[in-house]
């Protein structure tokens, strides 16, 4: 079976892609209006919403970058997972009910739509839409690039496509993504998320078991090997240290409720009461999927230290090397399909909110209306993918800057405005606008001017602290704004 490892992996990836195309064709018949295209008709059930929430949160980073970070730094990046239950608690306690009710009240199609409903100012929804577009460009481009690199890694091992270029891999992977995103919009996206989430949970659990059985004494042997070399690496803070880890705990914990591609799903479920089931299913799904992140990273660090595995060329190769050398070929096939699933589920979620921002939110904010919205939604989806693909291939450092700061920018821009503002009547549009602007300024100034932050405190954590302070401070110093009576009544529920 070992001789057929690559054909097996390729078969699983091809089957998965065919499945995505099938979902796209099926969803085409269910997408008859922009409301279906962006909001899935606000008709989603518990499992679909729950899987869509967690699989959009865990992008390709969880399957490639995550294990690489654990391999390189020990336990440090595990703090991005430790905060997950608290993060989902915050999202559900503050947003799940409120967003769903606002979406119905305003018949909204996007997050900026509900922001306008709450604050009553076009400038606020415009700024939120701009923050979304900036984040989407970077995130989507990095997801497309990751997808193409993984596809190229698989194809170059075959006899017939050994010389395939990265550009061709971008074209192939984007074609699949565009096909099901254009035909079925968010319906295709969330139903493929259901399949993608399932693949991710199964793959991660099996990989974790493989990790444990790779060592004679299981996890204790991994811990001991790492501890003998560097006790701090297997301590709670890894090699990054306490302050840097805690800043991740902060920005990933509180910031998860500010990720527009995730929280938008909370506007789409059918019954408000379903939120109580969606929370545990999302949390458990995420935690199972994250087993791969921790398991592979620690196992590869221990294997390299024991001398069993030659040192890796780059930390990001940890997952692929483990799968190539220690996992059963069928399991490797499932995990590679899971990796595509993780990347595509995040990419399609970004495509959806990016399209809404470009063809619905920004025109609306500047007083323009677009006729035949469904046609233009589909066209915009294809154009954004093409633009992001070109951006990914040819923009150099800019894609890395936008990609790396996507999470922190979203967290700092959206947590105060949406998470707090939707639960506090005193919050003003002026405070919301300044919070969004400050999040962009702090994030980009620190990165562009290469300002060194001690202890590697995450820039997003700094931006989030600043935007929270400005948002609350300005709101407290201002007069209470007048709200739409219906909005005020919903905020009392």
């Amino acid at each position, binding site marked *: 079976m070992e001789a057929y490892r690559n054909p097996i992996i390729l078969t699983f990836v091809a089957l998965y892609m065919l499945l995505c195309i099938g979902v796209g064709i099926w969803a085409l018949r269910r997408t008859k209006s922009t409301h279906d295209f962006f909001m899935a008709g606000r008709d989603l059930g518990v499992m679909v919403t729950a899987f869509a929430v967690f699989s959009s949160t865990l992008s390709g980073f969880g399957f490639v970058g995550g294990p690489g970070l654990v391999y390189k730094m020990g336990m440090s990046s*595990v703090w991005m997972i*430790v905060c997950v239950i608290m993060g989902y*608690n915050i999202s559900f306690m503050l947003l799940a009910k409120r967003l769903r009710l606002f979406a119905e009240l305003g018949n909204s199609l996007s997050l900026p739509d509900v922001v306008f409903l709450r604050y009553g100012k076009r400038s606020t929804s415009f700024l939120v839409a701009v923050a979304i577009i900036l984040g989407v460009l970077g995130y989507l481009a990095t997801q497309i690039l990751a997808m193409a690199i993984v596809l190229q890694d698989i194809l170059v091992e075959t006899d017939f496509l050994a010389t395939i270029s990265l550009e061709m891999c971008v074209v192939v992977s984007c074609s699949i993504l565009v096909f099901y995103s254009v035909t079925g919009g968010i319906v295709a996206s969330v139903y493929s998320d259901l399949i993608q989430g399932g693949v991710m949970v199964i793959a991660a659990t099996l990989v974790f078991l493989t990790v444990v059985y790779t060592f004679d004494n299981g996890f204790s042997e991994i*811990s001991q090997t790492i501890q003998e070399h560097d006790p701090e690496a297997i301590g709670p803070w890894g*090699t990054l240290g306490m302050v840097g880890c805690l800043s991740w705990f902060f920005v990933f914990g509180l910031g998860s409720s500010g990720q527009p591609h995730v929280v938008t799903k909370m506007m789409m479920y059918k019954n*408000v009461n379903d939120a*109580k089931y969606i929370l545990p299913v999302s949390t458990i799904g995420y935690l199972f999927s994250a087993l791969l992140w921790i398991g592979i990273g620690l196992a590869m660090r221990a294997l390299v230290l024991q001398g069993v595995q030659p040192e890796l060329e780059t930390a990001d190769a940890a997952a692929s090397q483990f799968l190539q050398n220690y996992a059963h070929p069928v399991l490797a096939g499932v995990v590679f399909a899971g990796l595509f699933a993780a990347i595509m589920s995040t990419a399609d979620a970004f495509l959806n909110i990016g399209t809404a921002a470009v063809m619905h939110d920004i025109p609306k904010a500047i007083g323009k209306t677009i006729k035949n919205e469904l046609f233009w939604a589909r066209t915009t989806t294809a154009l954004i993918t093409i633009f992001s693909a070109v951006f990914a291939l040819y923009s150099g450092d800019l894609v890395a800057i936008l990609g790396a700061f996507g999470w922190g920018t979203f967290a700092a821009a959206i947590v105060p405005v949406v998470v707090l503002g939707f639960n506090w009547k005193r919050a003003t549009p002026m405070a919301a606008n300044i919070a969004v602007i400050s999040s962009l300024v702090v994030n980009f100034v620190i990165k562009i001017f290469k300002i060194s932050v001690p202890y590697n405190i995450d820039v997003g954590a700094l931006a989030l602290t600043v935007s929270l302070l400005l948002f609350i401070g300005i709101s407290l110093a201002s007069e209470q704004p007048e709200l739409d009576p219906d909005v005020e009544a919903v905020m009392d529920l």
Partner: protein
Amino acid sequence: MDKIFKLFFGFLLVFGLLIVALWTSEVPQNVTGSTDTAHQTLLHSGQTVATTSATKWLSYFFGMGIIGIFGFVIFVGGRKKDQAIRKKMYRILGIGLLFYFIVYNGMVNSWWTYVETNSMDYFMGLPKPTAWMIFGMMFIPFFISFFYITKFEDWVYTKEDEQRFAEIMANRKKRDK
């Protein structure tokens, strides 16, 4: 409601000052790690923040501050107009938060001991402070999830809320016609 936000604002100011104090304090050597001498793709830890008492306590309070911020945000989410429900929710959230602080303190204390003694005590295959992190810090918030799930109809979205929302929607549709 404004009272919580006034307290939150004050808390955030103190948290901001804490970050400034960390920024201006003397940073221990290689505190964020450096390239391992034998393995170029691995980082090796440097001095920890526990090296000096100033950075040790500033880092400790940085963590306490983050849990405090989570607490304020969760309390904002637990607000209900009905005072009786609000009191019950705040009590549960308060207990959950107290557990979180206790576990955080347990983890940090265990880590301080680990740094001083290089202890090889394990729990479920992990050094003790790491076990506090995984089995404590990660899972304690399930306490809050549990009440969200089991008390949803009593506290989060009651039958009265459902009726009230139906009325709001009905009135809005009438007005829009």
